[in-house]
């Protein structure tokens, strides 16, 4: 039990520390830690949890950490995973904020972050491809994916509409 709590904390600490720019930046990291490194969840379960995290209020990675932590080690697990994901923010902003602000203003920092963001785009694309192999399994799911992707490229759509549309299409098109 202690071993699993420690690895939950360490995994989610890494996710928190390398999620730069928030939001979907955490998807590739969480996917690597939770599915590939530890095998805690299957890709389908991971997608379900991200969907639930989108439907509920609050930051997605905190929602996902709570859910995954609970699945692995109950209430303690959920608290430990959540603590892990917020620890880097707490340390950096409460203890090291002055150093950090100076560091961010250095000219090298901007180019480091630019390079890092290029990597992030590559990683998120790759994550959508690997997760897509689990999610897009037949014609209806391919249509749901294509329709929503095209809609989001044409105009900005709130994630909540994606979730509502996905759920509605799922109910209609599911091979009962």
């Amino acid at each position, binding site marked *: 039990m202690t071993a699993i709590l420690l690895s939950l904390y360490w995994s989610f600490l890494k996710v928190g*520390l*390398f999620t*730069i720019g*928030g939001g979907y930046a955490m*998807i590739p990291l969480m996917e*690597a830690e939770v599915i590939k*490194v530890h095998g805690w969840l299957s890709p389908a379960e991971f997608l*379900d949890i*991200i*969907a639930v*995290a*989108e439907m*509920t*209020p*609050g*930051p997605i990675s905190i*929602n996902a950490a*709570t*859910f995954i932590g*609970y699945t692995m080690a109950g*209430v303690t697990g*959920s*608290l430990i995973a959540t603590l892990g994901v*917020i620890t880097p*923010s707490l340390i950096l*902003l*409460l203890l090291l*904020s*002055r150093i950090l602000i100076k560091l961010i203003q250095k000219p090298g920092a901007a*180019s*480091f*972050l*630019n*390079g890092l*963001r*290029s990597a*992030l*785009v*590559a*990683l*998120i*694309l*790759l994550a*959508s491809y690997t997760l*897509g192999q689990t999610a897009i399994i037949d014609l209806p*799911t*391919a249509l*749901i*994916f294509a329709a929503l*992707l095209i809609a*989001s490229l044409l105009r900005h759509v709130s*994630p*909540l509409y*994606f*979730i509502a549309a*996905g*759920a509605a*299409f799922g*109910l209609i098109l*599911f091979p009962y």
Partner: protein
Amino acid sequence: MPNHETEIIKTESLWSILLTFLKVGAFTFGGGYAILPVIQQEIVVKRKWVSQTAFSDILIITQGMPGQLALNSAIQIGVRLRGTAGGLIAALGVTAPSVVILLAIAAYFYPLLRDNVYVQAVFYGLRPAVVALIAAAAIRMGREILYGWSGLILCALLLAVSIISGIHPILVLLLGGLAGLVVCRRQCSK
């Protein structure tokens, strides 16, 4: 907090900081940037805890550092109002609703509903929707970030590296950052 650069505009009770960020945590859907307008409305417009300029500074720091956008902005606003204690309380406020709601779902609703055929139908549709969301996020970020050839080439190279080698995303991120530094050293010195 002994920080001379931090301009303390107002002193608020820890209780009202907690309540405000509980509200932000409980009523913002979608995560990421979706949360920022809500924080802005609540903190800058309604409560006038920080000025619009200070809020922009907070966002710049938030975007350049690790962590969740909502959490990072909350901590910084809390620190400006009441120092370290304020930062901790703001973090607690913005996190607590997520933890409570997700615990209820994970412990009670998910096991109860998982085997229901209609719930399975919903998730059957939700999975491709979530993948579309993730792909759209990558494309949108790419459009914003990858101006110029160097960014595009770097992105393509790193994509190839991570497909072929399967190395951990953290290493890919660090590689990208280092490549950014190298590109800058060549261009910045010109």
